C-alpha cells in the first residue's frame, strides 16, 4: 500500500503520450516514449568555472532543488552525461579543454550556457576571455544574467527538457546536424 502524498498535492505528472492502449498494453511511437524518458531523467555535467558555479550550487541545494526535474545525479564524467552545463567565464586558456570535454560526450548531447560570460563573454571584453562558448562548441540554450537567479537557471533547464522531449530520433544523423558540427570543426 503506497502512502499518500501528504504536503504537496500540486505535483505535476508527465502526460501519457497519445497512442492506442488496451488491456495491459499501450502502443505509441518510439520517439515519443524516448523523448519522455530522456527529458525527465537528464544527467547533467556541471562545468562550473566561477561565480555562476556558486549560483548553480544554490540551484542544486534544497531551496531551489534541481532534483525534482529529474536532474538529481550529477555525473562528473563526460562519458556518462547528457547535458553539459557551462557556468562561468571561459578564458582562452580553457577553450581547448572545454572542447575536449564536449568531444568526449556521447550523442545525443546538449549544451546550456549559463550566465553572461558563457553566452557572450559578459562584462569581460578582454584579450584573455573567450567571447562566448559558441566560438568553440554548439550551444542549445543560453541563460543570461550575471549571475542568473536560480529560477532563471531552472527555466533554462526546462527549455532543454522541452528540446529533448521534442527531438526526433533521426536528428543526430541528419545532414543539418552534420553541417553544424562541420562548422565547428568537429567530425
Amino acid at each position, binding site marked *: 500500500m503506497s502512502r499518500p502524498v501528504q504536503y504537496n498535492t500540486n505535483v505535476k505528472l508527465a502526460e501519457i503520450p497519445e497512442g492506442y492502449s488496451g488491456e495491459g498494453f499501450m502502443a505509441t511511437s518510439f520517439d515519443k516514449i524516448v523523448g519522455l524518458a530522456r527529458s525527465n531523467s537528464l544527467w547533467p555535467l556541471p562545468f562550473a568555472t*566561477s*561565480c555562476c558555479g*556558486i*549560483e548553480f550550487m544554490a540551484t542544486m541545494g534544497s*531551496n531551489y532543488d534541481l532534483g525534482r526535474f529529474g536532474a538529481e545525479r550529477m555525473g*562528473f564524467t563526460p562519458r556518462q552525461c547528457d547535458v553539459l552545463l557551462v557556468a562561468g567565464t571561459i578564458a582562452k586558456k*580553457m577553450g*581547448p579543454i572545454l572542447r575536449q570535454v564536449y568531444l568526449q560526450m556521447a550523442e545525443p548531447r546538449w549544451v546550456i550556457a549559463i550566465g553572461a560570460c558563457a553566452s557572450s563573454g559578459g*562584462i569581460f571584453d578582454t584579450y584573455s576571455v573567450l567571447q562566448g562558448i559558441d566560438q568553440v562548441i554548439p550551444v542549445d540554450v543560453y541563460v543570461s544574467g550575471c*549571475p542568473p537567479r536560480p529560477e532563471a537557471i531552472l527555466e533554462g533547464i526546462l527549455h532543454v527538457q522541452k528540446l529533448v522531449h521534442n527531438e526526433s530520433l533521426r536528428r543526430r544523423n541528419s545532414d543539418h546536424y552534420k553541417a553544424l558540427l562541420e562548422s565547428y570543426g568537429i567530425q
Partner: protein
Amino acid sequence: MSEQQHIQLIEESLGKQTTTLNLGPTHPATHGIFENILEIDGERVLSAKQTVGYIHRAFEKIAERRPYYQVTPLTDRLNYCSAPINNMGWHMTIEKLLGLKLPKRVEYMRVLIMELARISDHLICNSVVAVDTGALTGFTYVFQWRELIYEIYEEICGSRLTTNIGRVGGFERNFSEVAWQKIDKFVEGFPKVMKEFETLLTRNRIFMDRCIGAGPISAERALNYGFTGPNLRAAGVDYDVRVSDPYSSYEDFDFKIPTGTTGDVYDRYLVRNLEIWESLSIVKQAISKIQQIEKEDPAQKDIFYSKESDRYHLPPKKDVYTKMEALIYHFKMVMGEIDVLPGEVYHSVEGGNGELGFYLISDGGRCAYRLHFRRPCFIYYQAFPEMIKDGLLSDAIIALSSLNVIAGELDA
C-alpha cells in the same frame, strides 16, 4: 588526434617508476579550475606541478579603463563567496585617497555586512571539506542558511551573489525594516544550525582520522610564503588585519582571534568554525551598537552615508528619475567626471582568505593609472606542493579544498 590532446606525452615518462596523474582543470573535487600534475608512487605524492590562469580575466587591465564606480563590479568577482568584503575594501581605498571620514552608524552597518559575508565564505569552505571526505549532509544543511544571508543582501542591494554593495562614503539606501527583521531571524536561528553542523563533524572519529595530519605547514614556512588569513592562523600566527590595522571602527568591537598549532586540515577547519562564532558575536554587537546610537539620537536613523562624500555619492533613484540636476549628477559620477587627487594608496582588509590589498595609483584622471589587487589565494597557493609532499593522495585532495582556493581570486 594530436590537436585533441591537451597534455603532451614526454618520452622520459615511459620509463619512470612513478605514476603521473593529472588532477586536471575540470575535476569535481578541486572546486575551481586549476591544474595539478602529480607524481605519485603508489599512494604517496612526491611532487606537484601547478598550472593556473584558466580563468584569467585581466581585471587589472580593465580597471585602467574604467572610472572608479565601474570597478566595483569587478571587485565582486574576486572572491565571489564573500563579495561584500571586496566591495567595501575598494570603497575604503577610495575613501582613503580622498580623505573621507564616515559616521559611526555607517561604519557599524559596514561591519555587520562584512561579517555576514565572512560567515557565508567560511560555511562554504567547511562544508566542502566535509563533502570531499564523503560527508554530504552538512553541505545541504548549511546551504539552506546561506540562502537567508542571500536574502539579506537582496533586501539591501538587490543582488544575491555579486552584490556591488555600498557607495563611496556609505550605502546606497538605508536598511529597510524587512532587512532588520531578516538579520534578527538569522542571528536567532543560526546558532542551532551551527551546533548541529559541528556535532556532525568536529568530534566525528572518521572525519578526525582523515583530517589530522593532512597537508600541514609550519608557521615559519607559512610566513615566508606570504600566508594570511585562516590558513596562517591555523599554523599558529595570530595576524588579523582587523586587529593589526583596524578599519571601519573594528577597534570598537570585542572579538578573539582563534589560532591553531600544526596548520593541518583539521586545524584549518576548527579555526574557520571558531571564526564563524566570532563573526556571529560581532554581528550581535553591531546590532546593539546601532540601536544604542539610534536611542541616543533618533535623527541618526536616517544616516546611511557620510555627508562629506556628497560629491561622490550617487543621488537617490527617485530624484534621478524626476529631477534634471540629479540625473546629470548621476551620469557624471558613473562616467567618472569627478575630481580625484593624484596619489598612491595601499589599503587592505581582512577578506575571507586573508589580507586582500588594493594598491591604487591615481594620476588625477577619471580612471586609475594602475590598480593592483593583492590576492591572498594567489600567494598562498604556491605552497601547495610543499604541503602535500610525502602525503597520501586523498590527503592532497582535502588539503586543496581546505585551503579555500577560489578561482576568481587566484587568477583575477
